[in-house]
């Protein structure tokens, strides 16, 4: 087997910057882990818990917005942050500390991978990091911020954690451009191989892309506070706003769901994960009545809001993460169905879609569903339906819960009858049949009778309805890890 990564010096030399600039002394080097950890943690809260030596890693305790955390950082001033036995020990010790204290751990990564000079020992040591990350999975929140190259072992470190944030210079890949070129002949630089575009949009490896290192650290601070200090929901403190104002007049018209999610959450608290990957579903962490919640919402603007294999997988991982940390879920449903197509079937929409069913059915956190416009077919079941164990299902008065849209249904049910009608009269007959069909099979009333919708709420009373449902539910937490699905 070849080494996990290019030698660190090689990967640096093939960066989008052709030549490595001359470096300032370590004290002033912006890559100095002391500077980076200080920039991450609240002022004066930092306490080093490892020696500031040439191990290649530095660890500290401190706070982010007052929330205690453990943090560690690659030392990119030593061999490009390459990881040997000593550096890996620092990370494992930091994890033991975070597990003992029950606090989030934040890793800042800038590393070419394993130290080749240490041979198999370095691989073994990197493997020990993977082991403890997996052991900690679902027990303490794990955040990663990739600030430079993170190659080979340094790529799989962040990948095993709950949330990966990428800084502008962050590059994540298993094998660097040189190895790719020598094996496959593909000419690619680090940016195109593992930068913000491929990982933010195509691979799903990265949850949050940031335009500056400062912003990347601020996002980690925000997420550390959200997951580490979740707070209590206060239904009395909830102000209602008209969430329905964000819907277009025509029920057929697609719209962007983001304003609904923003208005649902407390002001300026939301942070969307994976905004550009599988954008037909949105996954957002934020505060609701002061408490941390996770919001999952179909986005009709993209792919009509259909579920597909990628979006089901994205949502499933988010559900499992929230469940593992006891973060209640709000599921905003406006879904026409699963995306049809050969590509989807061959892409494993059955296997990958099953992950979402499994994730919801397994989740024990309070999870409330809001049907805004429509919930059709198999996708209705998947979006935290009553059958999967939703804590409460709330629907707006005009919402439709059905196997399919009423017009599509009558076209199948009344195919013969419609064929006999003159073409110019057909739309009118379809509409009449559809109305009749809706009354017996579709609308909210029927769903209430069946017990699959618990409550009809007006759009301007929805925040308080959802908040009460979450507050009344017992606070539970799933007893499982968060495998990166």
């Amino acid at each position: 087997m070849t080494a996990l990564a290019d030698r660190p010096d090689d990967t640096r030399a093939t960066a989008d910057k052709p030549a490595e600039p001359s470096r300032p002394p370590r004290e002033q080097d912006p890559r100095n882990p002391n500077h980076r950890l200080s920039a991450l943690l609240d002022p004066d809260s930092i306490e080093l818990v490892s020696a500031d030596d040439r191990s290649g890693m530095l660890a500290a305790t401190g706070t982010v917005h007052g929330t205690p955390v453990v943090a560690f950082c690659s030392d990119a001033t030593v061999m490009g942050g390459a990881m040997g036995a000593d550096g890996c020990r620092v990370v494992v010790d930091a994890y033991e500390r975070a597990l003992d204290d029950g606090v989030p751990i934040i890793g800042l990564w800038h590393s070419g991978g394993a130290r080749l000079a240490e041979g198999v020992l370095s691989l073994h040591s990197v493997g020990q990091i993977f082991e403890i990350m997996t052991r900690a999975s679902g027990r303490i929140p794990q955040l990663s911020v990739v600030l430079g190259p993170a190659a080979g072992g340094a790529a799989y470190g962040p990948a095993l954690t709950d949330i990966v944030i990428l800084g502008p210079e962050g590059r994540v890949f298993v094998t660097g451009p040189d190895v790719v070129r020598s094996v496959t002949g593909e000419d690619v630089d680090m940016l195109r191989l593992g930068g913000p575009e491929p990982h933010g949009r195509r691979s799903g490896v990265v949850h949050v892309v940031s335009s500056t290192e400062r912003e990347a650290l601020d996002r980690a601070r925000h997420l550390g506070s959200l997951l580490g200090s979740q707070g209590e929901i206060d239904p009395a403190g909830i102000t209602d706003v008209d969430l329905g104002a964000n819907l277009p007049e025509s029920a057929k018209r697609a719209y962007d769901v983001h304003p609904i999610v923003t208005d649902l959450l407390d002001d300026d608290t939301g942070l969307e994960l994976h905004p550009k990957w599988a954008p037909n579903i949105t996954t957002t962490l934020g505060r609701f009545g002061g408490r941390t919640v996770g919001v999952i919402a179909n986005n009709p603007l993209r792919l009509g809001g259909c579920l597909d294999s990628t979006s089901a997988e994205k949502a499933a991982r988010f559900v499992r993460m929230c469940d593992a940390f006891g973060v209640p879920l709000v599921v905003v449903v406006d879904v026409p169905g699963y995306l049809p197509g050969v590509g989807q079937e061959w892409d494993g929409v059955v296997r990958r879609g099953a992950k979402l069913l499994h994730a919801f059915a397994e989740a024990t956190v309070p999870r409330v569903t809001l049907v805004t416009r429509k919930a059709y077919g198999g996708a209705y079941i998947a979006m935290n339906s009553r059958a999967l164990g939703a804590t409460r299902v709330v629907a707006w008065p005009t919402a439709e819960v059905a196997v399919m849209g009423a017009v599509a249904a009558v076209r199948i049910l009344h195919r013969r009858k419609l064929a006999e009608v003159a073409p110019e009269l057909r739309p009118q007959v379809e509409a009449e049949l559809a109305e009749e069909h809706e009354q017996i099979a579709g609308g909210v009333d029927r769903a209430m009778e069946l017990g699959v919708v618990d409550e009809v709420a007006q759009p301007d009373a929805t925040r308080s309805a959802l908040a009460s449902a979450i507050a009344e539910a017992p606070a539970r937490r799933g007893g499982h890890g968060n495998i990166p699905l």
Partner: protein
Amino acid sequence: MAELVSAEMVANVHSVVVSVGDHVESGAMLLVLESMKMEIPVLSEVSGLVSEIRVGAGDVVQEGDVLMVIG
């Protein structure tokens, strides 16, 4: 650089909202597709001039088909 606007999914072209030569801002609606019984607006990801329109109302487009060129 020219920006290609392509279809995200199989759809019918419901209506084309802009004309060749129009200046559009990022986020502006370019055309509306119809798929899954929904009218789905396609928004511009860039600001620039509409230099080419390759589809018209009623056309069927496949995933990945170029609908328009901006800039």
